[in-house]
């Protein structure tokens, strides 16, 4: 068993496209990647036969499954291979995986579907067509066996990469059948296996991509080495919206290894040298004059004031309305109010942004770690000034994605640099500081929540106002209609919102966009919104004199799946049972990316204010649990991502630029802070939910609510490092 994210110089024989009916088209895979991959010792498999478009079977039964999505650690590659293998009925120990090149997908009318890998969609939106790919290949193999054995296909069974004719005791291996099967038409009517017959789905198979990550052989984009390659370091105007005025190339021209000093675009300069270290050293010595533009006076304080105004502004757009919340709150026996806020956050993938590009008469070729192969291809074509058909994209492994690598700014820059050094590949790597200060940050928002309780402590009305930055306003403005960005209210609208038993509800938002670029940060707006809502639920329960779990249960009465997951977390955490002295609980729930999540945190806070998170119990209902151990891994990781944001991380703005440059000021969690995480998977079946992101939303509120239980202190702004939890 192994993983071939390394493409052999194989021809992709597309026997179907989507309705190809046996029309065979040949496409050659980019060859340049072989040079990069020559650094590895992984043996390249011999050519096999393509049975349909998703599966290649070798004479020795090795089964290569094609993957359109990107693997960035979340286990999608293994999960998608599982789905193909389920209906293929192949021997899992013989399964490998390889990426589809984006240009091959594009040239075949995107026969392999959407390459975008974000929103925890990798599995859940590919299930049907991927499984059909496996099933179609199995049907073709069975048909080939029927012809060879001279028996009806209906008398044959396929299992473990072998087709058997039970009546005569004869059998043929997939490897023996693949060549003949590859010549058959792909069937049109492709039934899938019934749930009760699943053998691979739901099983804890091992990941396909582990071994090379243990010995240094896994090649990430930053590791690409090509013949004649040059290396580039870049500097972008530190103030967003500013431009490059001038630079004095003469000052560094004599430095060792320096080849070129280039304007990349209106706000970026690059030094190209023999090695990256030489390029970086020379760049640091390069005198650059920036025109800092109109935002050079913006600060975190001015942004906070701008957002605060939105909390009571009249121009809000309503997203979720039930009854008349303002009226109900006005008539309430008790009114509760809380104002919350969360900062900008960088993704801080451990592999900084980088891309290698070569521009020549033949077109543009790039080597890139991308969450969206199609988008990388388009960005390279645009920057290179060539048609889409003149671009080759080599997808390499991602050293972290978390949403950052869906943006293609770094791809565009690498091509703009390579264009000025035609014929030679140039690898551009951002320094950590460049990466930290030129991200697409988690949007900064504030929220004001007002709730009304009746005399019995029942919640009669809730108004939640979010003020802050919209991702869609800059990334997909057409999806903002009449000032309404529904993504801004993620988790609070329609079926996502679990507290449908609230009689009067108003969720609205006031868009307050800053000059700081924002983007999709793992978990996106669920993270902030769940903190606001779930901590405020705790405030309401406290004000009502009710237990936070009981208070929620009543309001979740119309949403049984939300409730079931909350109960599962509570039960596993033995919610009612007393804890050791000094240890306190917090609880919360959320729904996002197609999955229900809930968490219970157990914390203690010392007299001096030192927080210790002892234990987390996290429950997930993702419908079907494809690979339980990998779900657990994503849940554990979600707490690291979510608790880093809770405890330490923030990006602040001074003089229009991001202040933090590296991990000394942008602190993230380390192993010493890691609590024990117990994952409870409660798959209710019937749907496929996401796994990589949903749990992050419940990490911070569970801990914050436990901190309140421990200290009586209600923390409403993050990160926690700015707050003193010591006993007053």
């Amino acid at each position: 068993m192994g993983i071939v994210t390394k493409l052999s110089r194989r021809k992709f024989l597309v026997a179907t496209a989507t309705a190809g009916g046996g029309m065979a088209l040949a496409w050659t895979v980019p060859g340049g990647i072989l040079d990069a991959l020559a650094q590895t010792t992984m043996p390249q498999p011999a050519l096999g036969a393509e049975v349909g478009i998703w599966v290649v079977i070798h004479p020795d039964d090795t089964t290569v499954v094609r993957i359109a999505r990107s693997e960035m650690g979340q286990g999608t590659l293994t999960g998608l291979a599982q789905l193909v293998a389920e209906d293929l009925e192949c021997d899992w120990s013989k399964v490998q995986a390889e990426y589809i090149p984006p240009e091959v997908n594009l040239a075949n009318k995107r026969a392999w579907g959407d390459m975008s890998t974000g929103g925890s969609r990798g599995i859940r939106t590919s299930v049907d067509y991927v499984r059909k790919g496996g099933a179609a290949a199995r049907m073709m193999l069975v048909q080939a066996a029927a012809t060879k054995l001279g028996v009806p296909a209906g008398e044959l069974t396929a299992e473990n990469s072998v087709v058997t004719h039970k009546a005569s005791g004869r059998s043929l291996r997939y490897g023996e059948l693949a060549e003949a099967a590859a010549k058959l038409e792909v069937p049109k009517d492709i039934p899938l296996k019934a749930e009760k017959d699943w053998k691979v789905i739901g099983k804890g198979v091992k990941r396909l991509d582990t071994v090379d990550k243990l010995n240094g052989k896994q090649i990430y984009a930053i590791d690409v080495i090509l013949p004649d390659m040059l290396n580039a370091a870049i500097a972008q105007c530190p103030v967003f919206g500013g431009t490059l005025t001038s630079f004095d190339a003469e000052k560094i021209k004599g430095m060792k290894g320096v080849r070129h000093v280039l304007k990349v675009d209106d706000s970026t300069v690059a030094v190209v040298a023999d090695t990256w270290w030489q390029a970086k050293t020379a760049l640091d010595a390069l005198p650059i004059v920036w025109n800092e533009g109109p935002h050079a006076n913006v600060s975190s304080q001015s942004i906070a004031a701008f957002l605060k105004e939105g909390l009571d502004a009249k121009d809000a757009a309503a997203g979720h309305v039930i009854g008349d919340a303002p009226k109900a709150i006005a008539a309430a026996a008790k009114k509760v109010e809380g104002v919350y806020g969360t900062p900008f956050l960088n993704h801080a993938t451990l592999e900084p942004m980088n891309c290698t590009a070569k521009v020549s008469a033949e077109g543009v070729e790039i080597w890139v770690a991308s969450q969206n192969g199609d988008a990388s291809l388009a960005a390279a074509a645009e920057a290179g000034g060539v048609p889409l058909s003149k671009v080759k994209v080599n997808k390499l492994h991602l050293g972290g994605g978390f949403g950052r690598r869906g943006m293609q700014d770094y791809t565009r820059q690498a091509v703009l640099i390579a264009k000025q050094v035609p014929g030679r590949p140039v690898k551009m790597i951002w320094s950590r500081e460049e990466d930290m200060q030129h991200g697409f940050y988690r949007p900064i928002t504030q929220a004001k929540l007002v709730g009304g309780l009746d005399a019995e402590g029942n919640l009669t009305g809730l108004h939640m106002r979010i003020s802050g930055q919209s991702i869609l306003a800059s990334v997909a403005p057409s999806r903002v209609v009449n000032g309404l960005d529904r993504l801004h209210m993620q988790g609070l609208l329609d079926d996502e919102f679990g507290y449908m038993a609230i009689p009067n509800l108003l969720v609205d938002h006031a868009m307050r966009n800053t000059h700081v670029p924002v983007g999709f940060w793992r978990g996106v707006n669920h993270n902030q919104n769940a903190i606001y809502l779930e901590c405020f639920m705790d405030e309401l329960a406290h004000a009502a004199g009710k237990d936070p779990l009981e208070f929620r249960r009543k309001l979740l009465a119309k949403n049984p799946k939300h409730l079931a997951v909350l109960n599962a977390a509570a039960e596993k955490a033995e919610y009612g049972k007393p804890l050791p002295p000094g240890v306190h609980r917090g609880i919360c729930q959320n729904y996002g990316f197609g999955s229900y999540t809930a968490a219970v945190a157990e914390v203690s806070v010392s007299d001096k204010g030192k927080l210790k998170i002892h234990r987390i119990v996290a429950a997930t209902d993702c419908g079907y649990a494809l690979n339980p151990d990998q779900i657990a891994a994503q849940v554990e990781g979600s707490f690291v991502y979510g608790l880093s944001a809770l405890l330490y991380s923030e990006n602040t703005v001074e003089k229009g630029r991001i202040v933090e440059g590296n991990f000394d000021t942008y602190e993230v969690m380390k192993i010493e802070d890691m609590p024990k995480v117990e994952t409870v998977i409660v798959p209710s079946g019937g749907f496929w939910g996401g796994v990589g992101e949903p749990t992050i939303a419940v990490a911070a509120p569970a801990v914050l609510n436990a901190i309140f239980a421990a200290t009586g202190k209600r923390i409403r702004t993050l990160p926690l490092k700015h707050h003193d939890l010591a006993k007053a």
Partner: protein
Amino acid sequence: MIKLNVNGRVHDIDVDGDTPLLWVLREQLGFTGTKYGCGVALCGACTVHVDGQPQRSCAIPASAVADAKIITIEGLSPDSSHPVQKAWLAHEVPQCGYCQSGQIMAAVALLAEKPKPTDEDIDQAMTNICRCGTYPRIRAAIHAAAGNSRA
């Protein structure tokens, strides 16, 4: 010209002596298993062994280790069979995997010094950053590797 002893072989390298060891390993010698993450010895992705000690190669000038024995992830074992690598595999530690070379080198050094590390020992020695969040499995794998070495 600098002489560097990396993974048991001496290399003559034409490079400025103040170039960080990390970039010599990656750019001159092609040992790309050692990663760049921060450049200022904070994240640990570049951890290698210098005379048996875990060191952050991004902050060491190559000239300072000219007489030392340097081991990178590529030199840890010929076939990924080091007990720590085996424990990492058994516990399915890596997610994106980018930090894992450094994590493994730090764990190997810890176990060489303390064959039966406590959780506190692990907290102190394992200061490497993992953004995917593999910490629980790193901890479990270190304990498992320690058990294996006792057995």
